[in-house]
């Protein structure tokens, strides 16, 4: 099962849920940090990086001896990543999406592709957890290609927990594609509810089954619960607003280690996730049988 932990709003506890869930998983599991702009999962584990590789995307390179300055590449490019004013074109690699179009349309075949580094991927092997994370270089704008590369490191057949970036735009979509189930983490506040609604719309569009974790129960009000009840969303877990949780997270400690009384809470979450997954598979079996 590939499980993604996401949220509309940032700072609701995605990473807390992902890392603690991974440590109560029991069986070997891959923990994948897809928040490549600000990867945080590794801060909760002590281990040495076993593999590190740089990641690059293809960007155009113009052979000036072949280019006649016709400008076709610049007219084609939708991202203003290659510009030509009747002379040799100028490439802006940070704008390039790597579509390869300029290379295809160049009548003199003067364009080839070279690698431009945008980040790196690290793997760390812990006792039962394999942590895989991407880290976008400072100043690089394009997270999705790196996220795709991180996910390509997933070993098939082994369960995985994906820690998604916040929001609902391209980096999140790239993370969620192919996931079997999404856990949306929110908090019972007006901001939490508003961003949860956006996230729900997103996972529905992607047609991935999902449930909700309400973190910091006790602050705010009951509008998140009312919303979930009204539209039929399963609440998988409530995590109480306990200052000791915030303190242990601030020190980079797993909640299940620092506060062992919460171990059963995360075990319950895992149980509820498996149950929801079982129900969804049952439903889809019925659907496909019909």
């Amino acid at each position, binding site marked *: 099962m590939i499980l993604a932990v996401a949220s*509309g*709003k*940032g*700072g*609701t506890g995605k*990473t807390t849920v992902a890392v603690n869930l991974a440590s109560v998983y029991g069986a070997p599991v891959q923990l994948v940090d897809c928040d490549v*702009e*600000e990867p*945080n999962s590794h*801060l*909760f584990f002590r281990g040495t990086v076993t593999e590190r590789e740089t990641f690059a995307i293809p960007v155009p390179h113009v052979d000036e001896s072949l280019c006649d300055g016709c400008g076709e590449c610049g007219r*084609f490019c*939708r*991202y203003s990543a290659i510009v030509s004013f009747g002379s040799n074109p100028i490439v802006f690699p940070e704008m390039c*999406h*790597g*579509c*390869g*179009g300029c290379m*295809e*349309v160049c009548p003199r075949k003067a364009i080839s592709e070279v690698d431009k580094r945008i980040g790196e991927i690290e793997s760390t092997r812990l006792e039962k957890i394999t942590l895989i994370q991407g880290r*976008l270089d*400072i*100043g*690089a*704008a*394009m*997270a999705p290609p790196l996220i795709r590369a991180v996910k390509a490191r997933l070993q098939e057949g082994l369960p995985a927990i994906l820690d998604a*970036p*916040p*929001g*609902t*735009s*391209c*980096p999140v*979509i790239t993370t969620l*594609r192919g996931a079997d189930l999404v856990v949306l983490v929110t908090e019972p*506040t*007006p*901001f939490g509810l*508003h*961003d949860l609604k*956006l996230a729900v*719309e*997103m996972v529905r*569009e*992607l047609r991935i089954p999902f449930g909700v974790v309400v973190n910091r129960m006790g*602050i*705010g*009000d009951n509008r998140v619960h009312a919303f979930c009840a009204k539209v039929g969303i399963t609440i998988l877990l409530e995590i109480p607003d306990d*200052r000791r949780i*915030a*303190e242990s*997270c*601030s*020190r*980079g400690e797993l909640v299940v280690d620092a506060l062992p009384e919460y171990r059963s809470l995360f075990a319950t979450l895992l149980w509820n996730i498996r149950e929801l997954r079982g129900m969804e598979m049952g439903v889809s079996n019925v659907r496909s049988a019909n």
Partner: protein
Amino acid sequence: MSGARIEELVVISGKGGTGKTSLTASFAVLAALSGSAVIADCDVDAADLHLVLAPRVLERHGFKSGHEALIRNEDCAGCGMCREYCRFDAIGMVREANGIPTFAVDPISCEGCGVCVRLCPVKAIDFPDRVCGEWMVSDTRCGPMVHARLGLAAENSGKLVSIVRREARRIAEEKGKGVIIVDGPPGIGCPVISSLTGASQVLVVTEPSVSGEHDLERVLALSKHFSIPAAVCVNKWDINPEMAERIEKMACGAGARVAGRIRYDSAVTTAQLRELAVVETDAPSAEDMRRVWINLAR
């Protein structure tokens, strides 16, 4: 263009959920005391500032960005060249009727590059404009506000951020407002870069945790990369006082200045429930926020 200098303060955080929006709303209220600010919500992906400032929308504009490939089934010859050349895995084979396959574009994966449109040998692919969201000009109790909503799974949030900032600047010039307060997105990628390039100052709101520290380091490197002066404020500092101190030292070492600390205060959530900025209530942390605002103006 008016000759007066406009100060543009961008509030960002690296890590999400550190209290950016609550602080920005309070700044908007404080700036309104002198009637000088325009507010811009550049967290177009998950905009929340409107939940506190209750804008009355005056203008609404569609945000069109780029194009979307659409295959006309009736003209498709089924050669599959589009799928072969698409770098974004956005083209799938849908069905095979009488041995001839049909292809379809997944609008969520399509990045609108136009390669398939150009290469299709029978010109069976249309390339219409894509509507990616909307942006609005509104009026609030704190002055004019520009905000936006990015469509679901839409691309190009950076471009929408640029539009919001451009409009805010236009209004500031038109109405002679001296300050633009920008609520920025989390992260360090494309929408963040669009939010801060060319700004007068960034304020990074962080929290005293290993995650807050890690993300602050990266976001400060980003503001340095774009040569924007940075200030740092540790929110909920008393959750971990040693970490707060360590973070402030690190920030100073990275060339940022410390704009103050804000205490952990459950009344921040209470204010949010009442749709009020923290400084409009008697929350204890309101005093801390006022002090940060004064320090930023120095």
